[in-house]
């Protein structure tokens, strides 16, 4: 929930005054009272209460500092319910498959810098990176590249028997991936491949790509999609990034949604955004604050 405070949902209440054919727009910045109390450690004053604004289910407090915080303000990205239904199944990976409103989405905030261990062949790297570049190209706010030094990386790909770059997978019997996150922001990842089991080139690529896609958001693969989709839970020798796959990734990394929220918040924000649009014809804005939050 904390990051929701930083990703402030801005309600732009606009007063329009007409004077001699000129339109003057006054923007006043408010914050939901619950969010206000968490963010500002001070009691509400009489003046605050006098300036309260009331929406149907919430009380809004006028912000003392009307200077817009530094960041990128992006209008809510509306999506149809069919798309959102699939997106929620994929992005909100419920623990032990038990549905929970507290399940949260996870994403990479910084660029992904991949380091391959020495034993990964040039061909394997090249094939894999050509796949990764499709994602890098399609998804605006996600940059992925290969780096030559492990110190410069936040993502390692290696074989069992190589140096164990991710100690938590040291005892794993099968190929797997591991990601770390803090406040739902993923900041480190690794793929460990068992070459004894993945002896063919095609097998190796299949598994690397599967793990990589999963690691982009701790995604859950679903049984609704055709096996050619990377988000389906079944194998196909003809997997390819479909328009739908890329759309899901683009949406996950879009600034037009509030990132890192739990499912309940996600649902509420969508409901609120839709309601606001229906009533006012205006989209609410998500402000992605460009502070110096340290992921680690």
């Amino acid at each position, binding site marked *: 929930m904390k990051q929701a405070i930083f990703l402030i949902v801005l309600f732009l209440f606009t007063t329009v005054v007409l004077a001699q054919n000129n339109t003057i727009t006054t923007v006043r910045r408010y914050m939901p009272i619950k969010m206000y109390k968490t963010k500002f450690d001070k009691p509400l004053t009489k003046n605050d209460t006098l300036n309260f604004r009331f929406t149907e289910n919430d009380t809004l407090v006028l912000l003392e500092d009307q200077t817009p915080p530094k960041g990128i303000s992006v209008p809510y990205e509306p*999506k*149809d319910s*069919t*798309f959102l239904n699939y997106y929620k199944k994929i992005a909100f990976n419920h623990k032990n498959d038990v549905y929970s409103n507290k399940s949260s989405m996870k994403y990479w905030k910084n660029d992904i810098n991949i380091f391959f261990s020495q034993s990964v062949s040039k061909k394997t790297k090249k094939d894999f990176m050509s796949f990764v570049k499709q994602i890098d190209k399609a998804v605006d706010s996600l940059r992925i590249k290969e780096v030559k030094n492990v110190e410069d990386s936040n993502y390692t790909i290696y074989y069992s028997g190589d140096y164990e770059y991710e100690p938590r997978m040291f005892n794993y019997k099968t190929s797997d991936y591991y990601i770390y996150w803090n406040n739902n922001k993923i900041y480190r990842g690794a793929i460990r491949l068992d070459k*004894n*089991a*993945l*002896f*063919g*080139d*095609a*097998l190796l690529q*299949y598994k690397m790509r599967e793990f990589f896609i999963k690691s982009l958001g701790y995604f859950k*693969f679903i*049984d*609704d*999609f*055709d*096996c*050619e*989709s990377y988000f*389906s*839970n*079944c*194998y*196909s*020798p003809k997997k390819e990034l*479909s*328009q*739908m796959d890329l*759309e899901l990734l683009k949406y996950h990394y879009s600034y037009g949604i509030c990132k890192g929220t739990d499912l309940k918040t996600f649902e509420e924000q969508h409901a609120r955004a839709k309601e606001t649009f229906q009533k006012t014809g205006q989209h609410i804005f998500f402000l992605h604050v460009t502070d110096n939050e340290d992921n680690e």
Partner: protein
Amino acid sequence: MKYNLFIISTFITFAMFGQKTDCDSIKPRLSFVPDTWTATDLSHYIIIDKDTLYASYKTDFDTSLLKSYLEDDEGFLNHYRMIVFLFTDKNSKVIYEVKQWAAPIIVYLDKNLPKTVRSQFEEFYSQIQDVKNLKIGFTSKLKDANYQIKVTTTPIKANKNDSEISNKINNINSILTGGTYSLLTDDNNKFYSGILSININGRNDIDVIKQLKQLFFMSLGSFYGGFVSDNNSLLSKHYDNSSNFSDFDLKILKMHYHNIYEQKINGTTFLKLYNLSKQK
């Protein structure tokens, strides 16, 4: 509970589509296509930037094959249910489900296997040509394979605990003593890679080829062996190492691969499909 929901939602979906398929019990898997003429359901769509994507799914599931294989042959139906499901259904404590290969199988045979064994094995399995949805080929390069048959020096026992006499007897007779296989499976019970390990120390070629043939056959569907009394069958404990595929084994494969199921199939769903096929 989940299963019930899925059946209900499938029913509703099809009711909305106003069309019937041969397989109302299996949730179709969708792809989303931009072309209305390749779409299957125009009412199920997604709007993206400058385009609309419509749902498309396979409609070629045909249960008539089930009917043709099983009708008037209850014995075979029971054999199949035993080999695949161990007679379990959705309410059983342990549920066994259909497992299939979702890709053509490309076999690599270890060069340490005797040459005669390799050639006999290849010859035997090259007989499988007309099984729909099952393709078996061979390669001399491991990197091109998705199925590896390799020699091991590690002793392999069918039962881990052989302290009891009964287990020892089972081990001696079991198809899985001296050889084993492991398969990579996706979340939809589809195989995409396999390794068959066999210990050939102190064994003659006939013994080795016999076991290889049996183990490989079992791995085509994770079939449970040892319950078939006909010694011609690769699933018999007393397999006679025939050079030809038995009719029974071929029928099992044709049955098993008549369709690649898009969802998991347990014993209950299977019977439902069979009953549906009989109504047609």
